[in-house]
């Protein structure tokens, strides 16, 4: 019975009883469970707990150490804030999905073996898709199906990988794996899909804007950070991750700059931030792993804050299209200020959370001698300023006046945003609070004169570039459009070419059949000619001739045998 008190199971039990409660109690459950589960989580001592023996395998559901705990804490905070933000939501489907999704994500970071990790891994996929389908539009249904297919593919790869890994090693333990075998490669690929590696990333920008307003906030917190945790646990120090992360940090920037849908801009921005974390995991030093964990922690907060502020605008205006918005600061000043705090945090302005976490990864890459990667991350930091820190607040709240005068966000949304903003500032001002939670103790002081100076130089000159480009008319205007991404391959190109390919295959099949029938007809004609009356095979042969033929054949066999 005590085993059911483990945090992931508390969420699942809450999800099970949620549909049977009155609407206000359901909303209260979304606030109460994260707080209660967090207290239970912090009460667990380090070590392995809740070990169940199932068909000969010992499944560990609570492996508590500093790495899993920091992710567990931030997931609980994210669940609480999204519950508060979604106070107005009385949709049972979304409430159950949120609880189950948060529980599965927390289960994933506390899983001590690959089988239980797989169960939670698939749990996040299945639970989260309902946050997209809850939008209840045909497009959301189609997008949810694409999302589910990709997420389940990740789960299938994890299952295949763990089976091969078990066959190779006889172990299901989820410890450091490394890229050493087919099994570990499959597991790596599975993690890569959920972590949105380059070319495997598009589900993120496709699905997150398709979820409900509150669903997008929930989605932004869990899946990708769980994948970062899994990489940190299983593949820390895998060199290829450094280069994957660097590419990941850079490439979404160009797509985000000209994207019109601000929720999709934030999805690309999230993808870019994940790149920083992946680089940290790839470097594998104590400082860099801690940097990744710290950045994941801060990213959940500031990214959630940005999604919340854009969501509040959607709630009041019905759109997240930059081309239709602008000048909203007049009537949504609290949302605007919270958005600015999120923007300052993601671009690592001193005294905001991103500054104390991103610099850990940047410095780790510099000290590690990865100078090009360090430069790429520096460029990606500037890119964050381009597509998120300036673009999102500027186009939403300033820029041209769209003429819209929406009411300020409801009080519960404002409260959730203010708490998230407060946490971003508190972490930025008192980084020791965050550093004390990190998996490895780090002796790092972000507030040196040099560090603050170079950060202001980087950011303010980027802002100056924005002003100059805006003045000379080079800064791109956002228009209602779709920017092609790699998903065009499976959403347009393959379906467009499929009929042609099918026709070619059908033609090939028909001609192959024709040729085969022709050959058969010719063979039949030859047999027919040889066996017609008077033909060689139909003639009466003398015994002597037959014996001669047999002897020749036997001699031939003898000679072949001797050879």
């Amino acid at each position, binding site marked *: 019975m005590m085993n059911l008190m483990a945090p992931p199971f508390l969420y699942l039990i809450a999800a099970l009883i949620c549909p049977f409660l009155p609407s206000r109690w359901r909303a209260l459950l979304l606030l109460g469970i994260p707080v209660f589960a967090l207290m239970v989580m912090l009460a667990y001592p380090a070590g392995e707990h809740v070990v169940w023996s199932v068909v000969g395998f010992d499944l560990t559901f609570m492996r508590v150490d500093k790495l899993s705990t920091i992710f567990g804490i931030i997931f609980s905070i994210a669940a609480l804030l999204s519950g508060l933000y979604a*106070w107005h939501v009385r949709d049972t489907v979304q409430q159950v999905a949120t609880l189950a999704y948060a529980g599965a994500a927390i289960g994933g970071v506390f899983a001590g073996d690959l089988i239980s990790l797989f169960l939670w891994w698939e749990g996040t996929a299945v639970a989260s898709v309902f946050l997209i389908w809850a939008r209840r539009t045909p497009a959301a249904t189609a997008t949810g199906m694409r999302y589910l297919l990709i997420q389940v593919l990740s789960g299938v790869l994890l299952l295949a990988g763990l089976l091969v890994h078990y066959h190779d090693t006889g172990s299901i333990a989820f410890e450091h794996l490394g890229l050493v075998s087919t099994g570990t490669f499959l597991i790596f690929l599975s993690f890569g899909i959920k972590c949105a590696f380059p070319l495997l990333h598009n589900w993120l920008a496709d699905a997150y804007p398709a979820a409900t307003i509150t669903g997008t906030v929930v989605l932004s917190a869990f899946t990708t950070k769980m994948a970062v945790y899994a990489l940190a646990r299983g593949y820390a120090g895998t060199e290829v991750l450094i280069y994957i992360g660097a590419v990941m940090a850079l490439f979404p920037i160009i797509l985000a700059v000209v994207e019109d849908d601000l929720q999709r801009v934030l999805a690309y921005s999230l993808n870019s931030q994940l790149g920083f974390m992946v680089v940290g995991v790839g470097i594998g030093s104590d400082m860099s792993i801690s940097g990744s964990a710290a950045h994941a922690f801060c990213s959940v907060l500031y990214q959630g804050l940005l999604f919340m502020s854009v969501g509040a605008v959607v709630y009041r205006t019905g759109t997240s299209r930059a081309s239709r918005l602008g000048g909203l600061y007049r*009537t949504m*000043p609290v949302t605007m200020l919270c958005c600015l705090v999120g923007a300052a945090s993601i671009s690592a302005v001193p005294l905001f959370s991103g500054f104390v976490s991103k610099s850990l990864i940047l410095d780790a890459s510099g000290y590690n001698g990865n100078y090009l990667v360090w430069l790429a991350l520096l460029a990606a930091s500037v890119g964050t300023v381009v597509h998120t820190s300036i673009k999102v607040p500027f186009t939403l709240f300033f820029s041209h006046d769209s003429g819209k005068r929406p009411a*300020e966000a409801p009080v519960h949304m404002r409260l959730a945003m203010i708490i998230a903003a407060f946490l971003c500032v508190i972490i930025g001002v008192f980084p020791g609070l965050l550093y004390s939670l990190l998996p490895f103790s780090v002796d790092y002081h972000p507030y040196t004169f040099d560090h603050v*100076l170079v950060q202001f130089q980087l950011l303010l*000159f980027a802002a100056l*570039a924005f002003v100059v480009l805006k003045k000379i008319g080079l800064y791109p205007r956002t228009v209602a459009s779709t920017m092609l991404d790699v998903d065009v391959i499976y959403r347009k190109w393959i379906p467009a070419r499929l009929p042609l390919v099918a026709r070619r295959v059908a033609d090939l099949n028909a001609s192959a059949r024709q040729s085969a029938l022709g050959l058969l007809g010719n063979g039949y004609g030859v047999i027919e000619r040889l066996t017609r009356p008077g033909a060689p095979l139909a003639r009466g042969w003398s015994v002597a001739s037959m014996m001669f033929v047999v002897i020749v054949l036997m001699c031939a066999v003898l000679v072949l045998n001797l050879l």
Partner: protein
Amino acid sequence: MAMNSDKQADSGVAAGADSTGPESMAPLARYFRWTDNPASIDRFIRILSYVCVVLFLIDIVWPRYTKVPGEGLWGFYAIIGFVFFSLFVVASRFLRLFTERGADYYAPDCVDAEEYPESATEQLSHAQRPNDTLSSLGRQMLGRDTNGSGREGASS
């Protein structure tokens, strides 16, 4: 006047002088009204430029601690910030030539081609803003306020 601005908002017409008046603004927003004034924006840009010049000059007189070759060059971070920002913008404009399609390119299987369901939003204008406060939220949570019914999605 507030109603006037709401009509403008509904019709999607850009707001005129009335809608930027203090009556159509939240009290907190009045601290940011300078952003509507071109002269104030010019002053802001001038201050930004002066600060940038000062930051660049500090770099010349202050020997920075470096961990990467080249990092110690004068104005290294300033140049990186300015150049990369410009590069990203130019690269995006270039990429746009090849990758931009109409908003309904993926229709009907993409949310870009549809509006967000109105029933899941509460599109009130500033004039219609509810008088919700922390205490009203507390009352809703305690079940003493029956007006806090949810809106997004179907309730069951």
